[in-house]
């Protein structure tokens, strides 16, 4: 694990990504302290343009966009991580079980996975949300979590299937290890990188999907999140009246946070595939190399 984290931070992409994500997490944690204005108070004139006092301008209702964005970070991140966790736990559990046991178990689980994959997620979620009524972030997280685990399950199952045949798994079984121990202690530790990759990807997916659903009006308009900000901006025709900042702020937040997550995933990919790793040669080593070869008059 230590080696994993070390490699993660040695990678520049991952370091930047991690910094971005860490920044957003801090903002989310310290939201009430950091936000300059109360998000429910009218503190400016309607659609006031960005100024020194209101760095990101104000909404139609005169609320400070920056403060809303900061508080929105809290909601969006909680939903994102919760849904991402649910997706990953479900996907991993189902995928690894199917991959390890094979046979009937695999067939049954595959059926569920295929159903989950085939049904278009977004329309399903819209139907569910509309059916339940005005759904708060918690329900949205649950809906996302319960419908989007299919891809992760499929990928994890494939990896588990390939590792299943390795001699060390067979050796553990031959020593008499019960199945649950083989899965938890012998198989899972070797699947960490793919699970990590899924997790990060799921968070990204969840955050964006939540924003989408709220934008379409399925969220609770009383809650402040990036998605509901977009919903309000849309319903008050912000763009049409030229108040681009009301749309831009949440969009920017989504894009930057999403990029941060994707950058981390680049590094996880490198960890999983060591061949990608070796292409990077530390700068000082390369310098020593070129010095040496130019001294000898040879070629590198």
């Amino acid at each position, binding site marked *: 694990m230590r080696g994993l984290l070390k490699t993660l931070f040695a990678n520049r992409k991952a370091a930047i990504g991690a910094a971005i994500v860490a920044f957003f997490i801090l903002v989310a944690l310290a939201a009430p302290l950091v936000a300059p204005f109360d998000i429910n108070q009218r503190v400016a004139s309607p659609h006031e343009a960005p100024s020194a006092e209101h760095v990101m301008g104000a909404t139609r209702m005169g609320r400070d966009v920056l403060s809303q964005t900061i508080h929105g970070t809290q909601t969006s991140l909680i939903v994102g991580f919760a849904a991402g966790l649910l997706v990953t736990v479900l996907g991993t559990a189902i995928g690894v079980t199917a991959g390890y046991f094979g046979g009937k178990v695999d067939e049954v689980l595959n059926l569920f996975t295929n159903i989950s994959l085939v049904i278009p997620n977004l329309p399903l979620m819209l139907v569910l949300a509309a059916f339940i009524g005005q759904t708060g972030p918690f329900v949205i997280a649950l809906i996302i979590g319960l419908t989007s685990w299919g891809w992760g399950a499929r990928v994890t199952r494939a990896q588990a299937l390939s590792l299943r045949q390795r*001699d060390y798994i067979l050796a*553990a079984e031959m*020593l*008499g290890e019960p199945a649950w121990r083989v899965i938890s202690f*012998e198989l899972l*530790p070797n699947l960490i990188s793919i699970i990590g990759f899924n997790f990060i990807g799921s968070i990204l997916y969840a955050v964006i999907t939540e924003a989408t659903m709220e934008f379409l009006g399925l969220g609770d308009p009383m809650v402040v999140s990036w998605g509901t900000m977009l919903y309000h901006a849309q319903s008050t025709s912000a763009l049409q009246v030229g108040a681009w900042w009301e749309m831009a702020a949440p969009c920017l937040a989504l894009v930057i946070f999403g990029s941060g997550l994707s950058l981390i995933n680049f590094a996880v990919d490198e960890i999983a595939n060591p061949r990608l790793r070796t292409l990077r040669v530390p700068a000082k080593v390369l310098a020593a190399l070129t010095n040496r070869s130019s001294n000898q008059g040879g070629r590198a």
Partner: protein
Amino acid sequence: MNSLPELGTRPVLEARGLTMRFGSFCALDSADFSLYPGRALALVGESGSGKSTCAKLLTHVLTASAGHIFHAGRDVTNLTGRKAVLEYRSAVQMVFQDPFAALNPAHTVDHHLTRPLALHRPDLSSAQRREAVADLLRAVDLDPAITLRKYPHEMSGGQRQRVNLARALAVNPSVVIADEPTSMLDVSIRLSVLDTFRDLKRERGIAMLYITHDIATARYVAEETAVIFRGRIVERGPTAQVIDTPRHPYTRLLLAAVPEVGSPFGEGNSLAPLAAQVRESCEGPAELTEVSPGHWVRLARA
């Protein structure tokens, strides 16, 4: 090494008419052999000859299509129930061919050796377990102080194979099936690894099945050698006899093909004509007949 087991010793593991079919393909055809305590049988053959199938049948990874396996006199061909399988597995262990693939890259040597003890010797306290693990490593000629915390990728091939052997020994088996244990190791270190196998076999009275395609190494581990070709055992007998006075044409071909220091190609010792001849002659029904005490050859019925 005594070429024949002492009179009256009962075999620990016996295969009688052991057969494995995959659809219409017969991977193993009526294999007959016995394993005795403290002695090793070398099973020599090409890849695809059925020797790995044999190992999988004996360790219950596969279930035989026909024939019987007897362990200490009991018929264990079809084992049902987790308890029965567990008991069998604590008596019959396997050492795998690929030293790297047989160890979990996510765990240290300590984990690999502690787990079998935790499973099969629950009576041991954790201090006793630690001592037992250290004893196992010393038995395979590794230093516990250095080796315990190493990961598989931090060890050489020979060291990994010793750890594999230690793990197999941890459950105190009466039979060890070694499936090509040195074929992925450099030729120069094979002997020292095989010495460890041979010494432990004698000291602990373990019956060993040594599967290999390198017949030259059979002499160093096994008292008895069986040659398998296309799923059938074609010759079986005391190792020295099988190697020095082979009776079956395939055995002769195998021995002629083994690289021997100082006999360069081309000086009239080409293999091609012999190989073609052997492949033709090995079809058709044939019986195992005893040509001298303990030495059996599958000769075509006249």
